[in-house]
């Protein structure tokens, strides 16, 4: 499997391949968000981050996006005073109409609200929009930070199944999730973080049953 993303830092060695869904687990403060932000270039990391074998170094975030990394932050952060359509198209590279049609097919809820202002959407709709916006940039690697935060279980399921569709099309997906059960239900592999280091890794099925998980959050 070709590695899309490789991260190498003290105590942190991870890789994500094309079409895989990999999840980062861990309590708050474990370092999940920091890691995702570092991959996107918003923060520094004492180590190497390689995309498709090429080291990113100090490439600024906007260029990392053009190289193929999409980012869906914690708290969604859509552009509040732009419409759904504008939010999506402003992120497009070219072939905007076809790409837009693709995304709207993936997220039918958005198609119904194309002309609405993003700031007035519900939490779930904003999450879809944030993901759609990131996807409009045609990423080969999609980073998601806490996609289920504040969403009802049904919406979470909807979001997670979309992720499966996205991965099926060849995109690598790396997400940080506090809600381990949701994440492990859809992920192929998982890494458990604690204090910025990876303490456990493996196929999702294995980790679901691993007592280390409960211990990581509530252990003594």
């Amino acid at each position: 499997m070709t590695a899309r993303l490789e991260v190498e830092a003290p105590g942190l060695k991870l890789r994500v391949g094309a079409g895989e869904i990999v999840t980062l687990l861990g309590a708050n403060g474990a370092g999940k968000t920091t890691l995702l932000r570092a991959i996107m270039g918003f923060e520094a990391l004492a180590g190497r981050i390689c995309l498709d074998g090429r080291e990113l170094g100090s490439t600024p975030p906007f260029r990392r996006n053009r190289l193929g990394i999409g980012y869906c932050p914690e708290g969604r952060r859509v552009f509040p005073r732009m419409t759904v359509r504008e939010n999506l198209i402003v992120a497009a590279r070219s072939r905007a109409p076809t790409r837009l049609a693709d995304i709207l097919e993936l997220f039918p809820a958005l198609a119904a609200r194309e002309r609405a202002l993003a700031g007035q959407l519900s939490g779930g709709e904003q999450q879809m929009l944030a993901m759609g916006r990131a996807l409009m940039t045609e990423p080969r690697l999609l980073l998601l930070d806490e996609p289920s935060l504040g969403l009802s279980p049904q919406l979470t399921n909807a979001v997670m199944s979309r992720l499966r569709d996205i991965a099926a099309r060849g995109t690598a997906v790396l997400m940080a999730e506090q809600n381990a059960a949701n994440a492990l239900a859809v992920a192929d592999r998982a890494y458990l973080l604690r204090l910025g280091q990876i303490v456990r890794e493996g196929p999702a099925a294995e980790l679901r049953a691993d007592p280390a998980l409960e211990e990581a959050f509530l252990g003594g």
Partner: protein
Amino acid sequence: MRIDPSRGLRAPLAVAAIGLALWPSVFSSAYDLRLFTLAGVYVLLVLGYQFIFGHVGALSLTQGAFFGLGAYASAILAVRGGWSFSETFVLSIAIAVALAALIAIPVLGLESHYFALATLGIAQVLLLVCREWAPLTGGVNGISGVPGIVLFGRAVPGGSPSLILVWSLVVIGAAVAWRIQRGLYGLAFHVVRSAPAAAGTIGLDSGRMRLAAFLLSAAYAGAAGALFVRVNGIVSPDVLEFPVMVTCLAMTVIGGATRVAGAFAGAFLLVYLPEWFRPLDKYYLIAYGAGLLVMIVAAPDGLLGAAARLRQRLMPETDVAPEPERLPRPEVPVTAPLIFRDVVKSFGGVKALQGVSFEVRRGEIVGLIGPNGSGKTTLINIATGLETCDGGAVLYGNQVLTGRAPFAIARLGIARTFQNICLAGELSALDNVAVARSLDPGVDIETARAQAMHLLETLGAANFAMSQVRALPHGVQRRIELARALAVQPQFVLLDEPAAGLSEREQADLAGQIKTLRTRGLAVLLIEHNMPFLAGLADRLICLHEGRVIGQGSPDEVRRNPRVIAAYLGEPPRVPA
């Protein structure tokens, strides 16, 4: 590092001061004497401006207006009313301060850009009023024939005697400013400027400090204006125009906004440079702007700041840490618990807290846990006055804490640390802690530093006392923040993720220190995600989820509580994967 970087400049500054004092003796013309006197007037103006612009860090654009107001007040009272110098001098100051007090109410609370532009508007109004209200102010022509200074019935002629008088006042003003800057007030202003969220939580009333700084700056400006008009003999609306304000700003920035010596440097430079470059006339004004720009970009603490840093680089010296001194035993007025009762808080549509109730008793360590977004930090912010609550209350004894300002709550004995460390980066560790001792009225800066030293020792951070905080590692900074919290001699300490980013060793040390607090009878409430850290430490755990308490009890009980487990690990999805 140097606790006081200017100390390295003492020798050169002393030489400069002597040179400055002797310089007028070689003046040959009345013009030279007047120019030197004028420089003194500007030094006073800039000293005043340093309070609001340098120490508080607010861009006030009324300094020129207060100056002009003082000048006009003196002129009008002297020429129309025949009042004496001492009377008009005092009144000019009083009028400037009165105006400052009047506009402080709407304007001081404004955020930076609103404040700057609102003060500019006020200055413009004053200018327009002066131009138009001819019967009082002489209109566009101003007022001339302002008599010179008459003291104790004897005229003080222009030239040397006036110079000496003006400069005596300048020296007094500088001495006052120096005392303020070097004492605890100077440190306190620093914290208000660079760590405003923390200022209230260590007992600093930032609102009152800002007001005091604003009034002081107006007083100095009024005095400067009163002297200005006596030296020049006339006043015109020019004195209220924006260029005067810009000159004051430029002098302050170029000299050094927080150093008394900077006021002298800036004033002299910008009074004398035009004289020396007279042939370049129109162009030196462009150089003014360029100089101001270069300064703010490259040397934001002005010439004096750059000089201090240069001196430190060439001949590095470190200050010796003071001898530690124990803090006096605090009286414990109330031994009541801290009670959270039905606390409700929403942010927009999001319900952060939906009726949280529990209490923290003295001599306990309580851990507050819960997944992200459950409202824990909001709860601490409400208890320490940084946020208001929409319903319910936080009580301490028979005092209601909710609704009080942060500094009032700190003075009642509630201290806290922050999730994202909130220290004044450019100050030393020692000074960051020492400033929190200012809430004890009897303490001066030496005692505060000695006591801070003791606190740092008890937390094992004594070696870092003299280092600049922003250069210190994360774990050490957390300890400094804790020392600062303890400096207010609290009964309750609220810690927000104190173990975040600490190594195992540091965590063990911290746990030990928290246990010591418990032994001394304090109560500790800590937010943490780090379960191993909490397990051996907390007497009780409280778990929040989506703004409600879902579990309380001993650590073992809470960790086995199925609702708690579900909250952290998530419900498994209803629809099969």
